[in-house]
């Protein structure tokens, strides 16, 4: 019988073999280049990559870059009850002085309480610019004779108030309260119930005066890992004054903490994983060359990193943390090749037999990761690119390189076990096995039904608990407790354009939602609006009206003993020509403006605040979509968005399931019963992957769902391999292969259980649980189900099977 003609694969295999020295030399150079590339790569420890694309992520990034990035806020607490207030202030001043450095500069922007009253009085002069239709209606009511009489009595009563010493001048400048009602918007902006701060002697105290707030700016960039570490070390090292404790809030703490935990996790998983892989290969194969089975996936993972960085930069440490899982998955191909080649003297022929089935397994695995490109989450796209490159290269490396490292024929401990005849393998206790599958499915479903989905972003933040607790205390101390606030940001290249866009949006929002929107636009408008307001003011204050108001004021004032000149400052202002310019030299106005307007490289952003309720947030989000440069940030938007992402990922899993079921049924399963049986381990694995976190009282988050998708892809393979082995009488070999591949995959995932970062741990928990359940059901329950519902003659099935599996 003549040998069949060599296939394309065999020809390429032989080409590589004939030039293997050159090929391995070339690959060594490539690996060197890859390592050099990794050394120069930028990594990110931010959990931002785990946020869905779109407004929310942009908004968080904007907020961080716009303000938090250069701020360090320290909340000092007087913990010693015997400490006097002066001693507390003195301790705070000393602490500020010790912290002061080029990296930490106390905030000092020049606006103080000094001149506040004068500035407020001067702002009354801006009333014409703020005189909108609402103000006009109020003014018309205020100039009625009986209202003037009431206003004058009110002014007289004000003289009885202790603060009249400081505020009496306001009354003389604006006896009818017309300008003050306009400027009431300013008061509303400055008194916004967003935080609870009392300003005393230029210091920011909490309501109970036991806390004092210190704000510093820092030039250290958030992306500067070393700088952030140094800054955090400096903060940690500084001893606090006696009787005082401090809570520090800054984004650098998150950067440094996440990076420290992630790098520690990556180091730990790498070492533990590598040792576990080597032990299992050495224990099972007892062949030093089996180390190559680990070497190939490790090398391909290292090669995939810089290649992935060509498409995504910076690569997230979270993706790196997934590396050992990828190594575990991609080492499967080496195991298949090793097992096959040990039985055949000619590696090319041996490997040829598994090219296609291994390729099918590759495709199902890649399909899961490919689906991540549609998740709308950058972290998953990074993971997809990294995994696809790594696994595909591992597949190619296992086919074309690995056999050359093993030699012509290699023996292992596995060879010692005689392979029984195909027909001699009975399936014992099939009913028990089938019941096991049913029980696993039922239990998994019961566990999952107890699960609670959580879309809180904080779950994904690996920052030290100490830092998070410190932030909670900070928020409790300084939050006014007026409910959560959403932020609307409107950005434009110029200040005027930003004002115009913001006022358009806020006017519409106010019509729909009433007056609970806190916006700079309610105080200061664009130039066009201000011009219209001035025209309205001038039309209102006609000479006749001024004369009439003057007569009424004099008459009413005389009743309370006011002199004729008492209200002259008011009439002087009415006769002045209003200007259009912004009161740039007014510190009070600037203080408000600094709070609501930020200048950045992209131009100007006007901020507004609103109650984070479903009605407000929904309306503001919809309105923001219609205005260029506008976006909303709120806990609700983020939560909804993450919930949508989880839903999206769940849909994705379902779609992948359908595609896999249909595709694999057509390609590999002789009938629908086998396809269903093959799916049992995967379905149960997914249920357990999501159910076990619920059992452990963890809420289910996006990471668990993502891991479940990977679990499904891998466990479908287990089911297919097993049913395929059963139909072809190869279950013993299939079982061995599944045990080994599951063991390596479990090591890759299991090491993640040693991690501290919540993202890595959550993924590790679901992967490990799911794969373990999937594996057990594949090797134990699938043969039972097969024996009960799908056993047919192996020879008949072989004739219909498209390929042979390892």
């Amino acid at each position, binding site marked *: 019988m003549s040998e069949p003609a060599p296939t394309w694969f065999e020809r390429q295999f032989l080409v590589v073999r004939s030039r293997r020295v050159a090929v391995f030399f070339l690959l060594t150079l490539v690996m060197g280049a890859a390592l050099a590339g990794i050394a120069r790569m930028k990594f990110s420890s931010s959990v931002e990559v785990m946020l869905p694309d779109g407004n929310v992520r942009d908004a968080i990034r904007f907020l961080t870059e716009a303000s938090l990035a250069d701020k360090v806020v320290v909340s000092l607490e007087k913990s010693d009850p015997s400490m006097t207030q002066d001693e507390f202030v003195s301790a705070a001043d000393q602490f500020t002085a010790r912290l002061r450095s080029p990296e930490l500069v106390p905030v000092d922007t020049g606006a103080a309480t000094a001149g506040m009253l004068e500035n407020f009085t001067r702002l009354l002069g801006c009333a014409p610019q703020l005189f909108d239709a609402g103000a006009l209606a109020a003014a018309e009511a205020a100039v009625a004779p009986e209202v003037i009489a009431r206003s004058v009595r009110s002014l007289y009563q004000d003289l009885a108030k202790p*603060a009249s010493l400081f505020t009496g001048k306001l009354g003389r400048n604006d006896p009818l309260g017309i300008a003050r009602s306009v400027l009431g918007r300013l008061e509303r902006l*400055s008194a916004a119930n967003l935080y609870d701060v009392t300003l005393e002697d230029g210091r920011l105290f909490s309501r109970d005066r036991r806390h004092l707030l210190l704000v510093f700016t820092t030039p250290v960039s958030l992306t500067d890992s070393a700088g952030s570490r140094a800054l955090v070390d400096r903060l940690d090292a500084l001893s606090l004054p006696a009787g005082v404790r401090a809570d520090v809030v800054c984004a650098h703490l998150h950067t440094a903490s996440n990076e420290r935990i992630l790098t520690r996790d990556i180091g730990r998983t790498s070492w533990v994983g590598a040792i576990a892989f080597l032990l299992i290969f050495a224990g099972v194969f007892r062949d030093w060359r089996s180390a190559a089975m680990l070497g190939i996936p490790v090398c391909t993972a290292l090669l995939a990193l810089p290649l992935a960085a060509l498409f995504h930069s910076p690569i997230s440490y979270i993706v790196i943390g997934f590396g050992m899982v990828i190594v575990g998955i991609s080492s499967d191909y080496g195991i298949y090749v090793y097992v096959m080649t040990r039985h055949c003297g000619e590696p090319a022929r041996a490997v040829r037999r598994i090219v296609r089935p291994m390729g099918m397994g590759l495709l199902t695995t890649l399909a899961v990761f490919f689906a991540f490109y549609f998740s709308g989450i950058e972290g998953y796209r990074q993971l997809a690119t990294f995994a696809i490159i790594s696994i595909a290269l591992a597949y190619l490396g296992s086919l074309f390189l690995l056999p050359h490292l093993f030699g012509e024929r290699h023996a292992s401990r596995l060879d010692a076990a005689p392979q029984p005849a195909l027909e001699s393998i009975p399936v014992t206790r099939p009913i028990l096995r089938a019941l096991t599958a049913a029980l696993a499915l039922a239990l998994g479903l019961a566990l999952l039904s107890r699960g609670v989905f959580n879309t809180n972003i904080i779950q994904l933040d690996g920052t030290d608990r100490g830092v998070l607790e410190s932030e909670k205390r900070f928020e409790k101390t300084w939050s006014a407790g007026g409910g959560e606030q959403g932020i609307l940001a409107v950005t434009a290249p110029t200040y005027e354009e930003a004002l115009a866009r913001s006022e358009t949006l806020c006017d519409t929002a106010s019509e729909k939602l009433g007056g609970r929107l806190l916006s700079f636009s309610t105080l200061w408008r664009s130039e066009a609006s201000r011009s219209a307001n001035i025209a309205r003011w001038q039309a209102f204050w006609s000479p006749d009206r001024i004369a009439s108001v003057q007569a009424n004021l004099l008459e009413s004032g005389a009743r309370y003993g006011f002199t004729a000149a008492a209200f002259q400052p008011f009439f002087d202002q009415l006769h002045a020509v209003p200007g259009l310019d912004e009161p740039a030299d007014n510190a009070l106005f600037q203080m408000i403006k600094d709070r609501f307007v930020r200048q950045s490289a992209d131009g100007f952003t006007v901020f507004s605040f609103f109650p984070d309720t479903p009605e407000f947030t929904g309306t503001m989000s919809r309105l923001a979509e219609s205005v260029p440069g506008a976006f909303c940030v709120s806990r609700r938007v983020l939560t909804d968005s993450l919930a949508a992402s989880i839903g999206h990922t769940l849909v994705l899993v379902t779609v992948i399931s359908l595609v896999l079921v249909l595709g694999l049924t057509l390609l590999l399963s002789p009938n629908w019963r086998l396809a269903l049986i093959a799916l049992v381990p995967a379905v149960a694995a997914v249920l357990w992957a999501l159910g076990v976190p619920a059992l452990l009282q963890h809420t289910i988050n996006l990471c668990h769902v993502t891991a479940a998708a990977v679990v499904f892809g891998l466990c479908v393979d287990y089911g297919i391999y097993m049913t395929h082995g059963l139909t072809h009488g190869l279950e013993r070999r299939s079982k061995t292969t599944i045990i080994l591949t599951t063991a390596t995959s479990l090591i890759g995932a299991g090491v993640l259980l040693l991690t501290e970062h919540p993202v890595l741990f959550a993924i590790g928990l679901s992967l490990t649980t799911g794969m373990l359940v999937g594996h057990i059901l594949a090797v134990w329950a699938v043969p039972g189900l097969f024996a009960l519902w799908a056993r047919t003659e192996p020879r008949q099935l072989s004739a219909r099977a498209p390929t042979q599996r390892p």
Partner: protein
Amino acid sequence: MKTAVFAFSLCLASQAFVFAAEPEVPARIAERLRQLESKLSSVRTLQVDFVQEKQMAILEQKLVLKGRISLQQPDKMAWRVRSPIRYGMVIQGSTLRQWSEDTRDIQQFSLAGNPVFAAAIKQIQNWFSGNYLALTRDFHVALPSESPLVIEFTPRAGSPAREVIQRIVMRFGADERFLRRLEVTETGGDTMGITFSDPAFNPALPAEEWDPRHE
């Protein structure tokens, strides 16, 4: 996220504030003020009647107000005017409530978000509660007479008080346990004098004392 949004708004807000430097106060005066504060520190609650005379350019005649002040350390103060009109104001921490016979309802607002008014109220609280060292941040201090004790405060450059106050004179009784008379000269020339009488030291103040409607 919640903290990020909160901290963001706080950071924006905090841009506006300055940490003032500690002023220099002559040692002798600082020591004398400390002694005075020490004497007053034994007074946890205080009730005192007052007569306030205001000589103002906008009024044809001098305005005379009569009423009572109640204080409770560390942060409660009630100011009641009984004639010629009825008015009540109560400060508890950073919350201010006031009532007048005209409006007949209680207005309440937080001093936290109103730095202008808060600064004014803080000044007044310091005058009456005996936090004289705190006043040295905003005022130069002189002692025209040691016995009976008379303290003269003139606003420092840049202090909020300088906008409206030219000089404050505090005159104490012989035992220095309470302020006998306070005189304020405003920048525009208006004057205000308050004479205190019938002080009650450490009386038990009932809860309704902190109701601005209370008589």
